[in-house]
Each structure stands twice: as C-alpha cells, then as structure tokens.
C-alpha cells in the first residue's frame, strides 16, 4: 500500500499544473518514502530521507516556486495591460500533450522497472550476505551500530568520496552565485515577532536534536549525515528568518569549514602511513574516538553545504546589499 501511495504521489507531483503544488507533493512523497524505508528496516536512511529529501530539498522547491510567483506578480503589476503572466508558474498538465518523446521515456522507465523487479524476484536465496561478517568484527570497529561501523570504518573510503562529492556540490552552489562573499545574500528579517520567537525556541531544540543524532549514531540509527541534515535545516531556518548566521560567514572561514569533513578523512587516512600500515587503516584501539572525530567534522561540513545550497541557489527577494556597505552592527 505504501508503494501505491508513493507512485500516486509521484505521478500527481509530476503532472500537476502548479510548481508550488509539486513542491508540497514532493515533501509528502519524501515523508512517505521515509515510512517505506522504516518498513524495509532501514531507519538510518529514513532519517536522512526525511531530513534532506523532504526537508531541505522540499523547502528549496517551495522557496523557488514562491520566488517565481512573486516575480510574475511584480511583472504583472508593471505591465497591467500585458497578457496574464500565470503561464510561467503553471506547467500545463501533460496528459493532453503526451508527445512521442514523453511516451517513449515512460515506456523505457516502465521496462527498466520491470527488469529490476524481475531480477530481484529471481535472486537466489542468498546466505545471509555480508551481515555475519560485519557482526563478527563489530567489536573492533569502534561502533556498536553495524551501519555506522560499515560507513565509517569498514567502508570508510566510500564515505570519504561521498564527502568529496558533497564538497563539489557546495563549490557548484558557490559558483552559481559567482562569489564566496555571502553578505550580499542577506535578507531583511521583516520584523515578524512570531517568526523571531519561533526561531528562538526552535534553534536550541534543533541543535540538541542534531547533537543527539550524532552521538546516538555510534550505537543506534543516526550518525553524521542525519545530524548534518538537521543542522543544515537549522541554517536554512535561520536564513529564512533573516538571521545573519549563515550569510555572515566570511569567505575564508566558509571554505575551510566546507573542507573540514574531507580533511578529517584525509588525516585519518594518512596517519597510519608512517607506521607502515595501509591507507585509512583505523586502529581498533582508538576506533571509537577516530570515528567520532570524523563524524563531528563531517557533520559540520554537511550542515554548511546544505545551508549553502539553499542560500546561494536562489537570489534574495530583497535587493542585495552591496558588499562595501558593512553591517558591523
């Protein structure tokens, strides 16, 4: 039933006429997907999906839709005799315009889906897979949660490269903005007292939850990605409330902060080399400390990357303040 809901939400989100509605449906889709992950026995992924997929990305889509609508309304008011400008926020429902290309891609997607389902269906009854191997060596990995042990010790190299990909994303976001000085992205708070009080109450809670997720990751579902997603969402919240927390970070600190995760991995990788051990060999004696240190650095980088993706990708609603004018308030 969850699968049926997922497919229905996805189809609705794709074929609905309005971008804003697609964004809301995307969030609903992300949350349903998180439920699906829980049903499949993967709470770690469920947490990450809910936080990043439904949370940060969903909010980005909604923000973009609102920006588009605002711009159209401004243009509409500037040219009151012009043609009604609803056209650009509205994507005409495509049922009536099913062209050959759309149909072909639908058929191809269906065929691929069918092949995948068939392949999984016919998998031989595998002997428990890698699970027992992981369980056997869990005690020397430094974490008692098998997912964390795999992510940060047994397959730490993969996680290292993932952090590298995230760094590339952050660089791309900064490149879109064409500058690393975020101070032009500051938006005025609007002075709404409810927003201020909500932010004031929410910020400590979110920080605590993020730290909790990070520390629980060693022995339960949680970990660096989930904590980073929470703190990234916090950055987005602060930015939307008009706070200068994210945008006031100077360019050099920004770059160093983004690099924290990958550098932590680099240090952990290179450290065993002088003793003649292979790259990224984590000694089982200091495994927990190493994993925790890496996770803290990774969390910081992920949080800033996610907040940055939001802040840089969309031009601010208010006209940007020139960088010369310093807000040394």
């Amino acid at each position: 039933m969850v699968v049926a809901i997922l497919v229905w939400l996805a189809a609705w989100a794709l074929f609905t006429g309005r971008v804003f509605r697609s964004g809301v449906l995307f969030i609903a889709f992300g949350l349903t997907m998180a439920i699906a992950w829980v049903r499949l026995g993967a709470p770690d992924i469920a947490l990450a999906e809910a936080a990043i997929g439904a949370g940060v990305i969903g909010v980005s889509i909604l923000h973009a839709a609102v920006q588009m609508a605002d711009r159209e309304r401004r243009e509409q008011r500037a040219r009151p005799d012009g043609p009604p400008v609803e056209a650009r926020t509205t994507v005409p429902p495509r049922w009536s315009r099913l062209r050959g290309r759309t149909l072909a891609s639908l058929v191809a997607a269906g065929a691929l889906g069918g092949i995948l389902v068939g392949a999984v269906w016919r998998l031989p009854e595998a002997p428990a897979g890698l699970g027992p191997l992981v369980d056997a060596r869990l005690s020397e990995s430094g974490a008692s949660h098998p997912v964390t042990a795999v992510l940060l010790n047994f397959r730490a190299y993969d996680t290292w490269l993932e952090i590298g990909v995230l760094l590339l994303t952050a660089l791309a976001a900064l490149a879109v903005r064409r500058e690393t000085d975020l101070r032009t992205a500051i938006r005025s708070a609007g002075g709404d007292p409810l927003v201020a009080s909500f932010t004031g109450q929410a910020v400590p809670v979110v920080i605590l939850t993020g730290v909790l997720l990070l520390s629980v990751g060693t022995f339960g579902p949680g970990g660096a990605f989930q904590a980073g997603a929470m703190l990234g969402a916090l950055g987005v919240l602060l930015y939307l409330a008009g706070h200068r927390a994210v945008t006031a970070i100077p360019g050099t600190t920004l770059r160093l902060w983004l690099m924290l995760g990958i550098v932590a991995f680099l240090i952990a990788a290179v450290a065993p080399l002088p003793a003649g051990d292979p790259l990224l060999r984590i000694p089982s004696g200091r495994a927990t400390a190493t994993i925790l240190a890496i996770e803290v650095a990774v969390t910081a980088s992920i949080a800033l990357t996610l907040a940055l993706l939001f802040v840089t990708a969309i031009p601010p609603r208010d006209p940007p303040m020139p960088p010369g004018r310093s807000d040394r308030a």
Partner: protein
Amino acid sequence: MRDASALVLLVAGAAFVGAGTVGLFRFPDVLSRLHALAKADNLGFGLIVAGLVVRADSPATAVKLVLIWLLVLLASTTSAYLIAHRALHRDGGA
C-alpha cells in the same frame, strides 16, 4: 484495557485528521482551509499521540512522544500564522 483505550484514541485522532483533510479539499479559500487544518489536524494529532503514549513501552518513549507533540504544535502554529499572514497581504496587493 490499555490497548482498547489506545485504539479508541487512535481512531478518534484519525477521524479528526480525516475531517481536517476533507475541510482542506472543500473549503473555498486559504483562511478557512487553514482554520480547518489548524484546529482539526492538531486535535487529531494530539489524540494520536495520546493513543501512542498509552501504548508506550517505557516512560522515556512517552516523554519523547509528548515532546514531539509540543514541537509539532509549535511548528504548525507558526506556519499557519505565516501562511495566513501572506495570504492576507498578498491579496491586499502588498
């Protein structure tokens, strides 16, 4: 006994959330839809959390559920206010 009362609470909660969703679809404009959602959904959610608390297997879980309920209240009030604020001002041409 515990399961029975939990069941009653959960079903009542689901009924209220359903009523809120019907209101979402049927009310003509943003403000009345918000009204339906804010009242009915929050009540339904509160009942669902109450049902889960009754079924909770440890006091820690129950406390966490109550905290979640409080956080959802906080977030949904703020977002309802913000939506209403924007709807009012947008139609005013601001």
